[in-house]
Protein backbone atom coordinates (compact mmCIF):
# COMPACT_ATOMS: atom_id res chain seq x y z
CA UNK A 1 0.00 0.00 0.00
CA UNK A 2 2.67 2.41 1.07
CA UNK A 3 4.58 1.42 -2.00
CA UNK A 4 1.73 2.43 -4.27
CA UNK A 5 1.17 5.73 -2.55
CA UNK A 6 4.86 6.50 -2.72
CA UNK A 7 4.93 5.56 -6.37
CA UNK A 8 1.89 7.69 -7.08
CA UNK A 9 3.47 10.62 -5.29
CA UNK A 10 6.65 10.39 -7.32
CA UNK A 11 4.52 9.98 -10.40
CA UNK A 12 2.67 13.16 -9.49
CA UNK A 13 5.80 15.15 -8.79
CA UNK A 14 7.36 14.00 -12.04
CA UNK A 15 4.27 15.04 -13.96
CA UNK A 16 4.34 18.42 -12.27
CA UNK A 17 8.00 18.90 -13.15
CA UNK A 18 7.26 17.81 -16.69
CA UNK A 19 4.54 20.42 -16.99
CA UNK A 20 6.82 23.11 -15.67
CA UNK A 21 9.57 22.19 -18.10
CA UNK A 22 7.10 22.12 -20.98
CA UNK A 23 5.79 25.49 -20.03
CA UNK A 24 9.11 27.15 -19.54
CA UNK A 25 10.45 25.86 -22.81
CA UNK A 26 7.55 27.16 -24.83
CA UNK A 27 7.48 30.49 -23.11
CA UNK A 28 10.89 31.35 -24.51
CA UNK A 29 9.95 30.36 -28.03
CA UNK A 30 10.76 33.27 -30.29
CA UNK A 31 8.25 34.64 -32.76
CA UNK A 32 4.79 36.08 -32.64
CA UNK A 33 2.30 33.22 -32.79
CA UNK A 34 -0.41 35.47 -34.14
CA UNK A 35 1.68 36.55 -37.05
CA UNK A 36 2.72 33.03 -37.86
CA UNK A 37 -0.88 31.97 -37.96
CA UNK A 38 -1.85 34.76 -40.29
CA UNK A 39 1.24 34.93 -42.46
CA UNK A 40 3.45 37.65 -43.92
CA UNK A 41 0.75 39.79 -45.35
CA UNK A 42 -1.52 39.56 -42.40
CA UNK A 43 -4.26 42.02 -42.06
CA UNK A 44 -3.40 44.23 -39.04
CA UNK A 45 -6.98 44.07 -37.84
CA UNK A 46 -7.01 40.32 -37.85
CA UNK A 47 -3.61 40.31 -36.14
CA UNK A 48 -4.71 42.50 -33.27
CA UNK A 49 -7.84 40.47 -32.78
CA UNK A 50 -5.97 37.22 -32.80
CA UNK A 51 -3.39 38.49 -30.33
CA UNK A 52 -6.15 39.32 -27.95
CA UNK A 53 -7.93 36.01 -28.28
CA UNK A 54 -4.61 34.27 -27.77
CA UNK A 55 -4.07 36.27 -24.62
CA UNK A 56 -0.74 37.44 -25.89
CA UNK A 57 -1.42 40.91 -24.55
CA UNK A 58 -1.30 39.62 -20.99
CA UNK A 59 1.96 39.21 -19.06
CA UNK A 60 3.61 35.77 -19.23
CA UNK A 61 3.31 35.05 -15.53
CA UNK A 62 -0.41 35.56 -15.71
CA UNK A 63 -0.69 33.19 -18.66
CA UNK A 64 1.38 30.67 -16.71
CA UNK A 65 -0.94 30.53 -13.81
CA UNK A 66 -4.10 30.44 -15.82
CA UNK A 67 -2.73 27.66 -18.00
CA UNK A 68 -1.84 25.64 -14.94
CA UNK A 69 -5.24 26.23 -13.46
CA UNK A 70 -7.11 25.37 -16.63
CA UNK A 71 -5.00 22.34 -17.33
CA UNK A 72 -5.59 21.01 -13.87
CA UNK A 73 -9.28 21.48 -14.46
CA UNK A 74 -9.01 19.51 -17.70
CA UNK A 75 -9.40 22.54 -19.92
CA UNK A 76 -6.51 22.66 -22.32
CA UNK A 77 -7.73 25.72 -24.19
CA UNK A 78 -8.31 26.39 -27.86
CA UNK A 79 -5.94 25.66 -30.67
CA UNK A 80 -4.80 28.85 -32.34
CA UNK A 81 -4.60 27.16 -35.65
CA UNK A 82 -7.68 25.02 -35.67
CA UNK A 83 -9.93 27.16 -33.48
CA UNK A 84 -11.17 24.11 -31.71
CA UNK A 85 -10.67 22.81 -28.20
CA UNK A 86 -7.19 21.32 -27.87
CA UNK A 87 -8.61 18.38 -25.96
CA UNK A 88 -10.79 17.43 -28.97
CA UNK A 89 -7.90 17.64 -31.39
CA UNK A 90 -5.64 15.58 -29.21
CA UNK A 91 -8.39 13.06 -28.67
CA UNK A 92 -8.69 12.66 -32.46
CA UNK A 93 -4.98 12.22 -32.98
CA UNK A 94 -4.14 10.11 -30.00
CA UNK A 95 -5.63 6.84 -31.31
CA UNK A 96 -3.37 6.99 -34.35
CA UNK A 97 -0.21 7.51 -32.39
CA UNK A 98 -1.20 4.94 -29.81
CA UNK A 99 -2.09 2.43 -32.53
CA UNK A 100 1.26 2.90 -34.21
CA UNK A 101 3.09 2.72 -30.91
CA UNK A 102 1.27 -0.41 -29.81
CA UNK A 103 1.64 -2.13 -33.15
CA UNK A 104 5.30 -1.35 -33.26
CA UNK A 105 5.66 -2.56 -29.70
CA UNK A 106 3.82 -5.72 -30.69
CA UNK A 107 6.10 -6.21 -33.65
CA UNK A 108 9.11 -5.53 -31.44
CA UNK A 109 8.14 -8.24 -28.99
CA UNK A 110 6.75 -10.72 -31.53
CA UNK A 111 9.90 -10.58 -33.60
CA UNK A 112 12.46 -9.57 -31.00
CA UNK A 113 11.81 -12.19 -28.36
CA UNK A 114 11.81 -15.33 -30.53
CA UNK A 115 14.78 -14.09 -32.52
CA UNK A 116 16.66 -13.21 -29.35
CA UNK A 117 16.05 -16.71 -28.01
CA UNK A 118 17.05 -18.22 -31.31
CA UNK A 119 20.32 -16.31 -31.40
CA UNK A 120 21.13 -17.14 -27.82
CA UNK A 121 20.49 -20.84 -28.40
CA UNK A 122 22.57 -20.89 -31.54
CA UNK A 123 25.25 -18.57 -30.28
CA UNK A 124 28.26 -18.63 -32.55
CA UNK A 125 26.57 -20.43 -35.45
CA UNK A 126 26.30 -18.82 -38.87
CA UNK A 127 22.56 -18.01 -39.08
CA UNK A 128 22.72 -16.48 -35.62
CA UNK A 129 25.75 -14.46 -36.59
CA UNK A 130 24.00 -13.19 -39.70
CA UNK A 131 20.96 -12.26 -37.67
CA UNK A 132 23.15 -10.45 -35.18
CA UNK A 133 24.77 -8.53 -37.98
CA UNK A 134 21.32 -7.67 -39.28
CA UNK A 135 20.22 -6.35 -35.92
CA UNK A 136 23.33 -4.22 -35.75
CA UNK A 137 22.34 -2.73 -39.08
CA UNK A 138 18.80 -2.19 -37.89
CA UNK A 139 20.17 -0.11 -35.07
CA UNK A 140 22.39 1.97 -37.28
CA UNK A 141 19.93 3.15 -39.91
CA UNK A 142 18.21 6.55 -39.61
CA UNK A 143 14.51 5.91 -39.17
CA UNK A 144 13.21 8.26 -41.85
CA UNK A 145 15.59 6.72 -44.32
CA UNK A 146 14.34 3.29 -43.44
CA UNK A 147 10.78 4.53 -43.82
CA UNK A 148 11.48 5.72 -47.34
CA UNK A 149 13.14 2.49 -48.29
CA UNK A 150 10.11 0.60 -46.95
CA UNK A 151 7.74 2.78 -48.97
CA UNK A 152 9.84 2.38 -52.05
CA UNK A 153 10.01 -1.38 -51.72
CA UNK A 154 6.64 -2.36 -50.30
CA UNK A 155 4.39 0.40 -51.57
CA UNK A 156 5.79 1.71 -54.81
CA UNK A 157 7.33 -1.50 -56.12
CA UNK A 158 5.14 -4.25 -54.67
CA UNK A 159 2.03 -2.18 -53.88
CA UNK A 160 1.36 -4.30 -50.81
CA UNK A 161 0.70 -1.40 -48.52
CA UNK A 162 -0.55 2.14 -49.05
CA UNK A 163 2.09 4.82 -49.20
CA UNK A 164 0.39 7.13 -46.78
CA UNK A 165 -2.61 7.85 -44.69
CA UNK A 166 -4.66 6.22 -42.03
CA UNK A 167 -7.87 4.29 -42.05
CA UNK A 168 -9.62 4.21 -38.68
CA UNK A 169 -10.02 0.79 -37.10
CA UNK A 170 -13.74 1.31 -36.82
CA UNK A 171 -13.99 1.88 -40.55
CA UNK A 172 -12.09 -1.10 -41.86
CA UNK A 173 -9.84 -3.10 -39.56
CA UNK A 174 -7.98 -4.78 -42.39
CA UNK A 175 -7.17 -1.56 -44.19
CA UNK A 176 -6.40 0.07 -40.85
CA UNK A 177 -3.86 -2.64 -40.19
CA UNK A 178 -2.43 -2.24 -43.67
CA UNK A 179 -2.14 1.50 -43.32
CA UNK A 180 -0.33 1.20 -40.02
CA UNK A 181 1.89 -1.72 -40.79
CA UNK A 182 4.76 -0.02 -42.59
CA UNK A 183 5.03 2.89 -40.16
CA UNK A 184 4.97 0.47 -37.25
CA UNK A 185 7.63 -1.64 -38.87
CA UNK A 186 9.85 1.35 -39.58
CA UNK A 187 9.43 2.36 -35.98
CA UNK A 188 9.95 -1.14 -34.62
CA UNK A 189 13.16 -2.07 -36.41
CA UNK A 190 15.57 -0.44 -33.96
CA UNK A 191 13.49 -1.74 -31.08
CA UNK A 192 13.57 -5.26 -32.47
CA UNK A 193 17.32 -4.99 -32.73
CA UNK A 194 17.61 -3.77 -29.16
CA UNK A 195 15.37 -6.50 -27.79
CA UNK A 196 17.23 -9.19 -29.68
CA UNK A 197 20.59 -8.05 -28.45
CA UNK A 198 19.44 -7.48 -24.93
CA UNK A 199 17.61 -10.76 -24.67
CA UNK A 200 20.54 -12.64 -26.12
CA UNK A 201 22.95 -11.09 -23.65
CA UNK A 202 20.77 -11.65 -20.62
CA UNK A 203 19.99 -15.19 -21.69
CA UNK A 204 23.65 -15.96 -22.03
CA UNK A 205 24.30 -14.30 -18.67
CA UNK A 206 21.52 -16.26 -17.02
CA UNK A 207 22.87 -19.44 -18.53
CA UNK A 208 25.87 -19.08 -16.26
CA UNK A 209 23.79 -18.66 -13.12
CA UNK A 210 23.78 -21.15 -10.29
CA UNK A 211 20.06 -21.80 -10.42
CA UNK A 212 20.39 -22.93 -14.03
CA UNK A 213 22.96 -25.43 -12.90
CA UNK A 214 20.49 -26.56 -10.26
CA UNK A 215 17.73 -26.89 -12.83
CA UNK A 216 19.97 -29.00 -15.01
CA UNK A 217 21.09 -31.09 -12.09
CA UNK A 218 17.42 -31.89 -11.56
CA UNK A 219 17.45 -33.63 -14.91
CA UNK A 220 15.10 -31.17 -16.61
CA UNK A 221 15.17 -31.07 -20.36
CA UNK A 222 17.08 -28.13 -21.89
CA UNK A 223 13.86 -26.71 -23.32
CA UNK A 224 12.19 -26.69 -19.94
CA UNK A 225 15.26 -25.16 -18.34
CA UNK A 226 15.15 -22.44 -20.96
CA UNK A 227 11.45 -21.66 -21.02
CA UNK A 228 10.46 -22.31 -17.44
CA UNK A 229 13.52 -21.07 -15.64
CA UNK A 230 15.80 -18.86 -17.70
CA UNK A 231 13.34 -16.95 -19.84
CA UNK A 232 11.34 -15.53 -16.99
CA UNK A 233 14.46 -14.38 -15.23
CA UNK A 234 15.64 -12.76 -18.44
CA UNK A 235 12.41 -10.88 -18.87
CA UNK A 236 13.15 -8.51 -16.02
CA UNK A 237 16.03 -6.71 -17.70
CA UNK A 238 14.20 -6.91 -21.04
CA UNK A 239 11.20 -5.24 -19.42
CA UNK A 240 13.39 -2.29 -18.48
CA UNK A 241 14.51 -1.97 -22.05
CA UNK A 242 10.98 -2.20 -23.36
CA UNK A 243 9.97 0.56 -20.96
CA UNK A 244 12.69 2.77 -22.35
CA UNK A 245 11.79 1.74 -25.89
CA UNK A 246 8.26 3.01 -25.53
CA UNK A 247 9.53 6.53 -24.96
CA UNK A 248 11.75 6.18 -28.00
CA UNK A 249 8.86 4.79 -30.01
CA UNK A 250 6.72 7.80 -29.20
CA UNK A 251 9.64 10.05 -30.12
CA UNK A 252 10.30 8.16 -33.31
CA UNK A 253 6.66 8.43 -34.32
CA UNK A 254 7.20 12.16 -34.73
CA UNK A 255 9.44 11.45 -37.70
CA UNK A 256 7.64 8.42 -39.04
CA UNK A 257 4.16 9.92 -38.92
CA UNK A 258 5.53 12.77 -40.96
CA UNK A 259 6.80 10.42 -43.64
CA UNK A 260 3.64 8.35 -43.81
CA UNK A 261 1.28 11.31 -43.42
CA UNK A 262 -0.39 9.69 -40.45
CA UNK A 263 -2.72 12.04 -38.60
CA UNK A 264 -1.13 11.38 -35.22
CA UNK A 265 0.32 13.48 -32.48
CA UNK A 266 3.84 13.44 -33.87
CA UNK A 267 2.71 14.80 -37.18
CA UNK A 268 0.64 17.46 -35.48
CA UNK A 269 3.52 18.36 -33.22
CA UNK A 270 5.78 19.31 -36.08
CA UNK A 271 3.03 21.34 -37.74
CA UNK A 272 2.27 23.06 -34.48
CA UNK A 273 5.88 24.01 -33.93
CA UNK A 274 5.84 25.68 -37.31
CA UNK A 275 2.66 27.54 -36.50
CA UNK A 276 3.54 28.27 -32.88
CA UNK A 277 0.24 26.84 -31.81
CA UNK A 278 1.26 27.10 -28.17
CA UNK A 279 -1.81 25.72 -26.43
CA UNK A 280 -1.82 22.71 -28.72
CA UNK A 281 1.95 22.23 -28.50
CA UNK A 282 2.07 22.44 -24.75
CA UNK A 283 -0.74 20.02 -24.36
CA UNK A 284 0.71 17.52 -26.80
CA UNK A 285 4.16 17.59 -25.29
CA UNK A 286 2.59 17.26 -21.88
CA UNK A 287 0.49 14.36 -23.12
CA UNK A 288 3.45 12.52 -24.57
CA UNK A 289 5.50 13.09 -21.45
CA UNK A 290 2.69 11.98 -19.18
CA UNK A 291 2.13 8.89 -21.30
CA UNK A 292 5.80 8.04 -20.94
CA UNK A 293 5.69 8.61 -17.21
CA UNK A 294 2.61 6.45 -16.89
CA UNK A 295 4.12 3.69 -18.97
CA UNK A 296 7.17 3.68 -16.76
CA UNK A 297 4.79 3.45 -13.85
CA UNK A 298 3.14 0.44 -15.45
CA UNK A 299 6.54 -1.09 -16.11
CA UNK A 300 7.37 -0.60 -12.44
CA UNK A 301 4.19 -2.42 -11.56
CA UNK A 302 4.96 -5.21 -14.00
CA UNK A 303 8.28 -5.69 -12.29
CA UNK A 304 6.41 -6.41 -9.15
CA UNK A 305 4.25 -8.95 -10.91
CA UNK A 306 7.20 -10.75 -12.41
CA UNK A 307 9.69 -10.44 -9.62
CA UNK A 308 8.59 -11.61 -6.18
CA UNK A 309 11.78 -10.16 -4.71
CA UNK A 310 10.39 -6.70 -5.30
CA UNK A 311 6.81 -7.62 -4.61
CA UNK A 312 7.42 -9.35 -1.29
CA UNK A 313 10.28 -7.26 -0.02
CA UNK A 314 11.05 -8.26 3.55
Amino acid at each position, binding site marked *: *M*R*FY*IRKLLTLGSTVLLVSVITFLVFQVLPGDPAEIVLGVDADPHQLAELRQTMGLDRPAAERYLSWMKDTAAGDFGQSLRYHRPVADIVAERLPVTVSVALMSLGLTLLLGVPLGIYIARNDGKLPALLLSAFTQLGLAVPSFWLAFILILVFSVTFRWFPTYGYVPWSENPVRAFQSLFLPSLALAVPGIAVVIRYLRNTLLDQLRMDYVRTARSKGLREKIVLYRHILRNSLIPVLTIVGLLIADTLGGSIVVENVFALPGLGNLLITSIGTRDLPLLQTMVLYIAVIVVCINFVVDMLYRVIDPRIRL*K*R
Partner: protein
Amino acid sequence: MTEALIQASSLTKHYPVPRQKLFEKRHMLRAVDGVSFRIAEGEIFGLVGESGCGKSTTGQLLVQLVKQTGGELFYQGRNISELSDGEMKSLRRDIQIVFQDPYSSLNPKKTIGWILEEPLIIHRIGDKRSRRKIVAETLEQVGLDPSYAGRYPHELSGGQRQRVGIAAALVLTPRFIVIDEAVSALDVSVQSQILNLLKELQQKRGLTYLFISHDLNVVEYISDRVGVMYLGKMVEIFTVGEAGDGPLHPYTRALFSSIPDVKMKRERVTLQGEVPSPIHPPGGCAFHPRCPLATDKCRVTAPELRRVAAGHEVSCHLYEEANDTP
Protein backbone atom coordinates in the same frame (compact mmCIF):
# COMPACT_ATOMS: atom_id res chain seq x y z
CA MET B 1 44.83 -5.12 33.76
CA THR B 2 46.57 -2.23 32.03
CA GLU B 3 44.79 1.01 31.15
CA ALA B 4 42.11 0.64 28.49
CA LEU B 5 43.17 1.81 25.04
CA ILE B 6 39.65 1.57 23.75
CA GLN B 7 36.54 1.77 25.77
CA ALA B 8 33.06 1.35 24.42
CA SER B 9 30.23 2.26 26.71
CA SER B 10 26.69 1.32 25.75
CA LEU B 11 27.68 1.68 22.10
CA THR B 12 24.60 1.54 19.92
CA LYS B 13 23.90 1.57 16.22
CA HIS B 14 20.33 1.50 15.00
CA TYR B 15 19.51 1.58 11.31
CA PRO B 16 16.10 2.89 10.25
CA VAL B 17 14.08 0.29 8.37
CA PRO B 18 12.20 1.55 5.31
CA ARG B 19 8.53 1.74 6.16
CA GLN B 20 6.34 -0.85 4.50
CA LYS B 21 2.97 0.60 5.30
CA LEU B 22 2.09 4.25 5.08
CA PHE B 23 1.37 5.06 8.69
CA GLU B 24 3.53 2.38 10.17
CA LYS B 25 5.74 3.21 13.09
CA ARG B 26 9.31 3.63 11.95
CA HIS B 27 11.16 0.47 12.92
CA MET B 28 14.80 0.28 13.83
CA LEU B 29 17.23 -2.46 13.00
CA ARG B 30 19.27 -2.84 16.15
CA ALA B 31 22.59 -3.79 14.57
CA VAL B 32 24.49 -2.99 17.78
CA ASP B 33 22.40 -2.50 20.87
CA GLY B 34 24.24 -1.10 23.88
CA VAL B 35 27.56 -2.85 23.86
CA SER B 36 30.18 -2.09 26.51
CA PHE B 37 33.72 -3.40 26.66
CA ARG B 38 37.30 -2.29 27.17
CA ILE B 39 40.36 -3.32 25.23
CA ALA B 40 43.69 -2.92 26.95
CA GLU B 41 46.83 -1.78 25.21
CA GLY B 42 48.60 -4.72 23.59
CA GLU B 43 45.62 -7.00 23.94
CA ILE B 44 43.91 -9.09 21.28
CA PHE B 45 40.21 -8.95 21.83
CA GLY B 46 38.26 -11.50 19.84
CA LEU B 47 34.69 -10.93 18.77
CA VAL B 48 32.51 -13.87 17.75
CA GLY B 49 28.90 -14.53 16.97
CA GLU B 50 26.63 -15.67 14.23
CA SER B 51 26.14 -13.81 11.00
CA GLY B 52 24.30 -10.53 11.41
CA CYS B 53 24.83 -10.24 15.16
CA GLY B 54 26.66 -6.94 14.77
CA LYS B 55 30.33 -7.85 14.81
CA SER B 56 31.31 -5.83 11.75
CA THR B 57 29.17 -2.93 12.81
CA THR B 58 30.94 -2.87 16.15
CA GLY B 59 34.29 -2.96 14.37
CA GLN B 60 33.32 -0.14 12.06
CA LEU B 61 32.05 1.89 15.00
CA LEU B 62 35.46 1.59 16.62
CA VAL B 63 37.20 2.99 13.53
CA GLN B 64 34.32 5.44 13.07
CA LEU B 65 33.36 4.25 9.61
CA VAL B 66 29.84 4.41 10.92
CA LYS B 67 28.65 6.90 13.49
CA GLN B 68 27.04 5.51 16.61
CA THR B 69 23.44 6.38 17.32
CA GLY B 70 23.99 6.05 21.04
CA GLY B 71 26.61 5.44 23.68
CA GLU B 72 30.15 6.63 23.82
CA LEU B 73 33.52 5.58 22.58
CA PHE B 74 36.78 6.49 24.25
CA TYR B 75 40.25 6.23 22.81
CA GLN B 76 42.95 6.63 25.44
CA GLY B 77 40.34 8.16 27.69
CA ARG B 78 39.28 10.80 25.13
CA ASN B 79 35.69 10.81 23.95
CA ILE B 80 35.91 10.36 20.21
CA SER B 81 32.64 12.15 19.41
CA GLU B 82 34.04 15.35 20.88
CA LEU B 83 36.97 15.47 18.50
CA SER B 84 37.33 18.13 15.81
CA ASP B 85 37.76 17.14 12.17
CA GLY B 86 41.51 17.66 12.35
CA GLU B 87 41.83 15.62 15.51
CA MET B 88 39.66 12.93 13.97
CA LYS B 89 41.95 12.79 10.97
CA SER B 90 45.04 12.36 13.08
CA LEU B 91 43.20 9.77 15.15
CA ARG B 92 42.74 7.77 11.94
CA ARG B 93 46.51 7.27 11.90
CA ASP B 94 46.25 5.42 15.18
CA ILE B 95 43.21 3.33 14.45
CA GLN B 96 43.09 1.13 11.37
CA ILE B 97 41.02 -1.67 9.92
CA VAL B 98 41.62 -4.76 7.78
CA PHE B 99 38.65 -6.13 5.89
CA GLN B 100 37.45 -9.63 5.18
CA ASP B 101 37.29 -9.69 1.45
CA PRO B 102 40.76 -9.46 -0.02
CA TYR B 103 39.15 -9.00 -3.43
CA SER B 104 37.00 -5.96 -2.93
CA SER B 105 39.08 -4.19 -0.32
CA LEU B 106 41.78 -3.17 -2.76
CA ASN B 107 41.07 -0.65 -5.50
CA PRO B 108 41.35 -2.74 -8.67
CA LYS B 109 42.56 0.16 -10.78
CA LYS B 110 45.55 1.09 -8.62
CA THR B 111 48.92 -0.51 -8.10
CA ILE B 112 49.86 -1.95 -4.76
CA GLY B 113 52.43 0.81 -4.39
CA TRP B 114 49.79 3.48 -4.97
CA ILE B 115 47.42 1.87 -2.50
CA LEU B 116 50.08 1.70 0.17
CA GLU B 117 51.40 5.20 -0.47
CA GLU B 118 48.03 6.91 -0.45
CA PRO B 119 47.55 6.98 3.34
CA LEU B 120 50.96 8.61 3.65
CA ILE B 121 49.99 11.26 1.12
CA ILE B 122 46.70 11.91 2.86
CA HIS B 123 48.49 12.45 6.15
CA ARG B 124 51.35 14.37 4.52
CA ILE B 125 54.02 12.02 5.74
CA GLY B 126 57.48 12.30 4.21
CA ASP B 127 58.51 13.18 0.69
CA LYS B 128 58.20 10.97 -2.33
CA ARG B 129 61.41 9.09 -1.63
CA SER B 130 60.86 8.45 2.01
CA ARG B 131 57.31 7.35 1.26
CA ARG B 132 58.59 4.85 -1.24
CA LYS B 133 60.93 3.56 1.39
CA ILE B 134 58.19 3.18 3.95
CA VAL B 135 56.09 1.29 1.40
CA ALA B 136 58.95 -1.07 0.61
CA GLU B 137 59.61 -1.70 4.28
CA THR B 138 55.99 -2.37 5.02
CA LEU B 139 55.76 -4.82 2.14
CA GLU B 140 58.72 -6.68 3.52
CA GLN B 141 57.16 -6.74 6.96
CA VAL B 142 54.08 -8.50 5.66
CA GLY B 143 56.27 -10.96 3.81
CA LEU B 144 55.99 -9.60 0.29
CA ASP B 145 58.78 -8.67 -2.04
CA PRO B 146 59.02 -4.85 -2.48
CA SER B 147 58.78 -5.43 -6.23
CA TYR B 148 55.09 -6.14 -5.67
CA ALA B 149 54.61 -2.36 -5.44
CA GLY B 150 54.27 -2.21 -9.22
CA ARG B 151 51.59 -4.89 -9.46
CA TYR B 152 47.86 -4.65 -9.59
CA PRO B 153 45.60 -6.45 -7.09
CA HIS B 154 44.27 -8.90 -9.68
CA GLU B 155 47.76 -10.18 -10.25
CA LEU B 156 47.95 -11.39 -6.66
CA SER B 157 46.60 -14.45 -4.90
CA GLY B 158 44.07 -14.17 -2.11
CA GLY B 159 46.68 -14.59 0.59
CA GLN B 160 48.96 -12.04 -1.00
CA ARG B 161 46.12 -9.60 -1.26
CA GLN B 162 45.29 -10.03 2.38
CA ARG B 163 48.91 -9.26 3.14
CA VAL B 164 48.58 -6.08 1.13
CA GLY B 165 45.41 -5.25 3.06
CA ILE B 166 47.34 -5.67 6.29
CA ALA B 167 50.23 -3.62 4.92
CA ALA B 168 47.84 -0.81 3.97
CA ALA B 169 46.66 -0.73 7.57
CA LEU B 170 50.24 -0.80 8.85
CA VAL B 171 51.84 2.01 6.82
CA LEU B 172 50.44 4.63 9.15
CA THR B 173 51.96 2.79 12.12
CA PRO B 174 48.68 2.53 14.01
CA ARG B 175 48.35 1.34 17.58
CA PHE B 176 45.00 -0.31 17.23
CA ILE B 177 43.69 -2.39 14.34
CA VAL B 178 40.27 -3.83 13.79
CA ILE B 179 40.68 -7.10 11.94
CA ASP B 180 37.30 -7.97 10.46
CA GLU B 181 37.19 -11.59 9.32
CA ALA B 182 40.58 -11.10 7.73
CA VAL B 183 41.28 -14.82 7.40
CA SER B 184 37.81 -16.22 6.83
CA ALA B 185 37.99 -16.32 3.05
CA LEU B 186 41.35 -18.03 2.97
CA ASP B 187 42.34 -21.65 2.72
CA VAL B 188 43.68 -23.25 5.89
CA SER B 189 47.25 -23.28 4.67
CA VAL B 190 47.16 -19.60 3.80
CA GLN B 191 45.09 -18.79 6.85
CA SER B 192 47.81 -20.11 9.11
CA GLN B 193 50.37 -17.94 7.36
CA ILE B 194 48.30 -14.82 7.90
CA LEU B 195 47.51 -15.70 11.49
CA ASN B 196 51.21 -16.12 12.18
CA LEU B 197 51.93 -12.80 10.51
CA LEU B 198 49.29 -10.97 12.53
CA LYS B 199 50.50 -12.46 15.78
CA GLU B 200 54.09 -11.64 14.94
CA LEU B 201 53.29 -8.03 14.06
CA GLN B 202 51.29 -7.61 17.20
CA GLN B 203 54.13 -8.81 19.33
CA LYS B 204 56.81 -6.83 17.53
CA ARG B 205 54.94 -3.56 17.47
CA GLY B 206 52.91 -3.89 20.61
CA LEU B 207 49.71 -3.56 18.62
CA THR B 208 46.21 -3.91 19.94
CA TYR B 209 43.63 -5.85 17.89
CA LEU B 210 39.93 -6.21 17.80
CA PHE B 211 39.82 -9.57 16.09
CA ILE B 212 36.48 -10.36 14.50
CA SER B 213 35.74 -13.84 13.27
CA HIS B 214 32.95 -16.34 13.15
CA ASP B 215 35.53 -19.13 13.23
CA LEU B 216 35.77 -19.99 16.90
CA ASN B 217 38.89 -22.06 16.42
CA VAL B 218 40.71 -19.06 15.05
CA VAL B 219 39.46 -16.74 17.77
CA GLU B 220 40.37 -19.18 20.48
CA TYR B 221 43.80 -19.56 19.02
CA ILE B 222 44.72 -15.92 18.73
CA SER B 223 42.74 -13.90 21.28
CA ASP B 224 43.45 -13.03 24.86
CA ARG B 225 39.85 -12.33 25.63
CA VAL B 226 36.74 -13.08 23.59
CA GLY B 227 33.48 -11.18 23.38
CA VAL B 228 30.46 -13.14 22.24
CA MET B 229 27.66 -11.23 20.53
CA TYR B 230 24.09 -12.26 19.95
CA LEU B 231 21.52 -10.03 18.25
CA GLY B 232 23.50 -6.83 18.73
CA LYS B 233 24.22 -7.51 22.41
CA MET B 234 27.34 -8.69 24.15
CA VAL B 235 26.32 -11.85 25.97
CA GLU B 236 29.66 -12.87 27.35
CA ILE B 237 33.25 -11.72 27.66
CA PHE B 238 35.73 -14.29 28.84
CA THR B 239 39.44 -14.90 29.02
CA VAL B 240 40.79 -17.64 26.80
CA GLY B 241 43.32 -20.29 27.59
CA GLU B 242 44.73 -21.37 30.92
CA ALA B 243 44.02 -17.97 32.47
CA GLY B 244 40.29 -18.32 31.90
CA ASP B 245 37.64 -20.55 33.34
CA GLY B 246 35.86 -21.44 30.13
CA PRO B 247 32.60 -20.02 28.73
CA LEU B 248 29.46 -20.03 30.84
CA HIS B 249 26.65 -18.57 28.78
CA PRO B 250 24.40 -21.23 27.26
CA TYR B 251 24.73 -19.57 23.88
CA THR B 252 28.52 -19.52 24.02
CA ARG B 253 28.56 -23.13 25.06
CA ALA B 254 26.24 -24.16 22.27
CA LEU B 255 28.29 -22.18 19.82
CA PHE B 256 31.51 -23.83 20.84
CA SER B 257 30.00 -27.24 20.82
CA SER B 258 28.76 -26.71 17.27
CA ILE B 259 32.28 -26.49 15.89
CA PRO B 260 33.03 -29.71 14.08
CA ASP B 261 36.18 -31.12 15.52
CA VAL B 262 38.83 -32.84 13.47
CA LYS B 263 40.03 -34.76 16.50
CA MET B 264 36.90 -36.64 17.31
CA LYS B 265 33.21 -36.86 16.73
CA ARG B 266 31.69 -35.47 19.84
CA GLU B 267 28.25 -34.94 21.25
CA ARG B 268 26.87 -31.52 20.61
CA VAL B 269 24.25 -29.17 21.88
CA THR B 270 22.54 -28.39 18.60
CA LEU B 271 20.69 -25.09 18.82
CA GLN B 272 17.20 -25.21 17.45
CA GLY B 273 15.88 -22.55 15.10
CA GLU B 274 17.69 -19.59 13.74
CA VAL B 275 18.72 -16.12 14.86
CA PRO B 276 15.61 -13.88 15.07
CA SER B 277 15.43 -10.64 13.15
CA PRO B 278 17.25 -7.73 14.77
CA ILE B 279 14.28 -5.55 13.81
CA HIS B 280 11.95 -7.34 16.19
CA PRO B 281 14.24 -8.99 18.74
CA PRO B 282 12.46 -11.19 21.27
CA GLY B 283 11.57 -9.55 24.54
CA GLY B 284 13.38 -10.44 27.74
CA CYS B 285 16.64 -12.22 27.11
CA ALA B 286 17.05 -12.15 23.33
CA PHE B 287 18.37 -15.70 23.38
CA HIS B 288 15.49 -17.23 25.28
CA PRO B 289 13.61 -18.73 22.33
CA ARG B 290 16.58 -20.91 21.46
CA CYS B 291 17.93 -21.43 24.96
CA PRO B 292 17.61 -24.95 26.34
CA LEU B 293 17.75 -23.58 29.89
CA ALA B 294 15.33 -20.68 29.51
CA THR B 295 13.06 -19.90 32.47
CA ASP B 296 10.03 -17.64 32.79
CA LYS B 297 12.24 -14.86 33.99
CA CYS B 298 14.26 -15.03 30.78
CA ARG B 299 11.14 -14.39 28.75
CA VAL B 300 10.39 -11.20 30.63
CA THR B 301 13.55 -9.55 31.87
CA ALA B 302 16.66 -8.91 29.89
CA PRO B 303 19.77 -9.82 31.86
CA GLU B 304 22.70 -7.47 32.15
CA LEU B 305 26.34 -8.12 31.50
CA ARG B 306 27.88 -8.81 34.92
CA ARG B 307 31.26 -9.72 36.17
CA VAL B 308 31.28 -13.27 37.41
CA ALA B 309 35.00 -13.68 37.82
CA ALA B 310 38.18 -11.83 37.00
CA GLY B 311 38.14 -11.14 33.27
CA HIS B 312 34.79 -12.85 32.87
CA GLU B 313 31.47 -11.15 32.27
CA VAL B 314 28.21 -12.91 31.45
CA SER B 315 24.77 -11.67 30.59
CA CYS B 316 22.56 -14.49 31.83
CA HIS B 317 20.09 -14.86 34.68
CA LEU B 318 21.61 -18.22 35.53
CA TYR B 319 24.71 -16.55 36.84
CA GLU B 320 23.07 -13.63 38.61
CA GLU B 321 22.13 -15.10 41.94
CA ALA B 322 25.54 -16.40 42.70
CA ASN B 323 27.07 -13.01 42.34
CA ASP B 324 24.25 -10.89 43.69
CA THR B 325 24.77 -12.20 47.12
CA PRO B 326 27.90 -10.51 48.30
